[in-house]
């Protein structure tokens, strides 16, 4: 597959909750290896958009197409449920803001990482464990804690474990919903470093929802600014942050605390 063909195409993505608008008429293309940040204040429709794109919410209107591993572009709404679920646990990853939503809290860290392997039919305990070991090291968790439940992990460790659990299947696209939310600043910084390294090393594409412009600046190539469910500005991250054009973006950028 060449990188000049988009991996994901969203056209007029719209989600209404009854009379209320979640997101309205969002269109963009995501290219392989690209990180797209979706920023905006709470309630601007970022998470709704993310859930809509990743088939976790049925859309009211619009269409999302995804280029499968065989190179064909498929409308996600036309996939069978089996295909969709297979996609979700192999080719995609989803990192939740609250790691408890994305982890199995009652099974060990090793089993959390191994789940995707077992889901696609790996039946060799030794190999699963080796891979889990390897991934724990990669996300900077002491491999000695492989048999502990995530309930005994700190927030930052849980988030790193959630990332490992998603990346073990070598997805091509990862959806991230405020991956650094709820973590203190030093832990955030380490997590961002780690994410940056992994994303670069694995050539991942990602759609990253965040209200933290610093996170967007560090991780993303392009940026979409949302307000009241609509995209008000889009462009290269550095351009948007250094030269915001829409009044709302200007307000957002201006409201960053300078230390």
């Amino acid at each position, binding site marked *: 597959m060449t990188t000049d063909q988009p991996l994901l195409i969203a056209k007029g993505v719209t989600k209404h909750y009854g009379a209320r608008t979640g997101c309205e008429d969002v269109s963009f293309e995501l290219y392989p290896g690209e990180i797209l940040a979706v920023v905006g204040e709470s309630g601007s429709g970022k998470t709704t958009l993310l859930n809509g794109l990743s088939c976790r919410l049925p859309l009211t209107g619009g269409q999302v197409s995804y280029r499968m591993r065989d190179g064909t572009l498929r409308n996600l709404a036309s996939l069978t449920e089996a295909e969709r*679920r297979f996609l979700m646990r192999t080719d995609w990853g989803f990192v939740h803001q609250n790691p408890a939503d994305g982890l199995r809290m009652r*099974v060990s860290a090793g*089993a959390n990482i191994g789940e995707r392997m077992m889901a*696609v039919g790996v*039946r060799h*305990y*030794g190999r699963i*464990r080796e891979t889990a070991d390897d991934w724990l090291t990669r996300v900077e968790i002491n491999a000695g804690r492989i048999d502990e439940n995530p309930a005994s992990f700190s927030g930052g460790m849980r988030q790193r474990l959630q990332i490992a659990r998603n990346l073990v299947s070598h997805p091509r696209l990862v959806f991230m919903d405020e991956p650094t939310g709820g973590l203190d600043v030093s832990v955030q910084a380490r997590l961002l470093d780690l994410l940056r390294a992994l994303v670069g090393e694995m050539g991942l594409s990602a759609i990253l929802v965040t209200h933290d412009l610093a996170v967007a600046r560090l991780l993303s190539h392009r940026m979409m600014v949302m307000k009241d469910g609509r995209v008000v500005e889009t462009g290269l991250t550095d351009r948007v942050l250094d030269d915001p054009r829409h009044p709302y973006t200007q307000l957002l950028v201006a409201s960053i605390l300078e230390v």
Partner: protein
Amino acid sequence: MTGSLPAYNFAYLDEETKRMIRRAILKAVAIPGYQVPFASREMPMPYGWGTGGVQVTASIIGPDDVLKVIDQGSDDTTNAVSIRAFFANVANVAVTTKTAEATVIQTRHRIPETPLREGQTLVYQVPIPEPLRFLEPRETETRIMHALEEYGLMHVKLYEDIAKNGHIATTYAYPVKVEGRYVMDPSPIPKFDNPKMDDCPALQLFGAGREQRIYAIPPHTRIESLDFEDHPFRVQEFDRPCGLCGATGVYLDEIVTDDRGGRLYACSDTDYCEERRMAGHSGPAL
């Protein structure tokens, strides 16, 4: 029915109910290992005492059948005795304790040691029919998982076993795959009995009363116990023979005989043990 007696139908359940349950059974036999919902009735016993098994038995039993009921392998524990008496009462069928003579065997948590033959039906009492339940609490989700054959989670459980205990420590209700398709909970039989389910010439029916599910294994169906390539499925092994009949290669119960640490290991299948003793075998405890 005539006379002033309360109008019990043959085998307690009314014919319409039996029809409904038989339909569920037929569907279950047609889709081996698939859990068929059915409208479970109140039975004159509490849930957990085999209401599912009793309803299945009541629906398939005929006047010419010979019924055997076992509870953990034994013919004379409370559950077995009361269910046997129940059917002797409401269906007036012949009852037996001999595996070879029975046509219908209702069981709680064991498969008899004497190999079953064609024409026999084994009815299991099932507390929790859903093998994925403890990993996935949502029924809507487990149904989709069965439909789409997403059984990776079952191995997550076995992985946890090995990670925490060094070997697969599940010893009963050990999950099996039926004819290469559905993953099934064989009810809490010891995993020792799992191999007996494979290619069994008898019909095996499973009834869960509280959970309202019936499932089945038709005769000569392939049953595989789930495992890992490097941690293959193994049954329990006993390092001594039965203390009473000297049998080896059977499932043994540990019986406390006194308060000074005395133990007797004896066949859990009482009928099998008695038959052997009648045939002149005897074990080290006698």
